[in-house]
């Protein structure tokens, strides 16, 4: 009985200490960076006021609407193409990297390593490196998105495969099925819905990333954003932002519909 009370007391003390440490870290870092909470919060109403006054697109900004749409379309297509092609490559690497469907150990380790390298280099870094070799064009943006998407999808697909099809793979192997029979008739039917939903997730992530990448490579909606931002045409910048938000929401909506359809 005493022991149990002690444990409860101990936990309470631990919690208090953890909380105090967190508080100290927050205060310490804000002192170091000269970030003032009160000032920060006080500036919020002003910021909202400024955004309302400057970022809401008026009639003048709407004149740029068709230009925004065509660049936005470019960005959407770029993210879809980079995601689907990356998805195709990721599927093979995931099959070789997954515990359930690996061909052999070294190949599995190799494909996991490759994916990890591609995944852990941020998309901005890819864009900056690739812009040197490919120049300011769509290809740079495509490869930057392709590489990070590929890295991420390999990981996501591996987990999907391991989760969804461990048992049926065992059964199919026991019947004497070949590797590709097992993959196409066991693994894919079982994990396809989850994979498609990862693809949609990456498409809408990539539309947001493409904006950033476009800013660096001078293509797509990101380029336009940068252009009007530097011209201090904040209304058009607002228009672009709203358009991106709408597209991302629409894609999420479609992805939910499709998922429900194929599940």
């Amino acid at each position, binding site marked *: 009985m005493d022991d149990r009370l002690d444990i409860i007391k101990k936990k309470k003390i631990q919690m208090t200490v953890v909380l105090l440490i967190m508080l100290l870290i927050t205060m310490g870092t804000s002192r170091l960076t000269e970030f003032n909470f009160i000032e920060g919060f006080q500036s919020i109403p002003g910021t909202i006021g400024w955004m309302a006054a400057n970022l809401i697109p008026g009639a003048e900004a709407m004149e740029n609407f068709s230009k925004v749409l065509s660049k936005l379309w470019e960005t959407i297509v770029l993210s879809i193409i980079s995601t689907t092609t990356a998805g195709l490559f990721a599927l093979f690497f995931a099959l070789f990297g997954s515990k359930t469907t690996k061909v052999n150990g070294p190949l599995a380790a190799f494909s996991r390593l490759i994916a990890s390298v591609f995944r852990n280099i941020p998309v901005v870094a890819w864009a900056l490196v690739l812009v040197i070799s490919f120049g300011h064009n769509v290809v740079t943006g495509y490869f930057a998105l392709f590489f990070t998407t590929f890295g991420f999808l390999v990981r996501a697909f591996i987990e999907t495969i391991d989760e969804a*099809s461990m*048992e*049926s793979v*065992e*059964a*199919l*192997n*026991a*019947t*004497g*099925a*070949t*590797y*590709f*029979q*097992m993959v*196409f*008739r*066991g693994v894919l*039917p*079982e994990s396809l*819905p989850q994979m498609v939903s990862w693809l949609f997730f990456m498409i809408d992530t990539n539309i947001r990333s493409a904006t950033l990448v476009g800013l660096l490579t001078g293509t797509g909606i990101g380029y336009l954003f940068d252009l009007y931002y530097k011209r201090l045409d904040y209304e058009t910048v607002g228009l672009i932002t709203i358009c991106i938000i709408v597209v991302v929401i629409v894609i999420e909506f479609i992805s939910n519909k499709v998922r429900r359809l194929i599940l």
Partner: protein
Amino acid sequence: MQQVLNKEPINSSVEISKKVQKGEVILKVQDLYKSYNRGTPVLQDIQMELKQGEFISIIGPSGAGKSTFLRCINRMIDPTSGSIVFDNTEMTSLKKADLRKQRSKIGMVFQHYNLVSRLSVFENVLHGRFGYKSTLQGVFSLFSEEEKELALSILDKLGMKEFAYKRCDQLSGGQKQRVGIARALVQQPKLLLCDEPIASLDPNASKIIMDHLKDISETMGITVLVNLHQVDVALKYSDRVIGLNKGRIVYDGVPEKLSNSAIRDIYGSEIEDLILE
């Protein structure tokens, strides 16, 4: 379980001895030894001969090596040493293509059914034919009319014909297991390995499954090797019971001779401490 117990015994010992004499040896295991990473052995000194049409249960506590033994037979797990001769072929030295061919003659039934849950019953049953197909035929589901008819007749036999076009995730556990058995039977196997086939089923479904397995061994002449947790079920259905403890065979004989002391050897505890029904 009451139902299972109330049923009339299926075999008299006279019938058993007749069958054992009649059947030819289809599986011969010698000196089988398995250990993971050179640790403590999971299986050791396993000697066993199975004859055609026999119904054999393997009983033993969890971790005794029952599942590992079953999977060593069709090389889902590679044994460390020893010999397994199935249908006049040494299994342990087989390379990929030959192993596939041998596996197609061994059906396997799993505790968790291991079906592709998003495909229909019919498709799952036809998966049992993959061992006889080329990769492309399998990938594109190109099955002959005879194969489809075989699949349907087996489903009919197991009382699952009306569910043929249903998706497997809509079935109950007992129905899923019958699909699992159908998939194994469509292989037209000589040996059926069943890994805890009724461990996730209610008593009613368990009885249906065990009756089907018994029927398969009697009418189709297929050797059925079943891992079981339920001693009473093993005694009821088997021609022969094998007791496994810590990777060793501690009993091998007819169920009638399985004494309380033998059960103690298998489970390592007094008979009074076990739930047998």
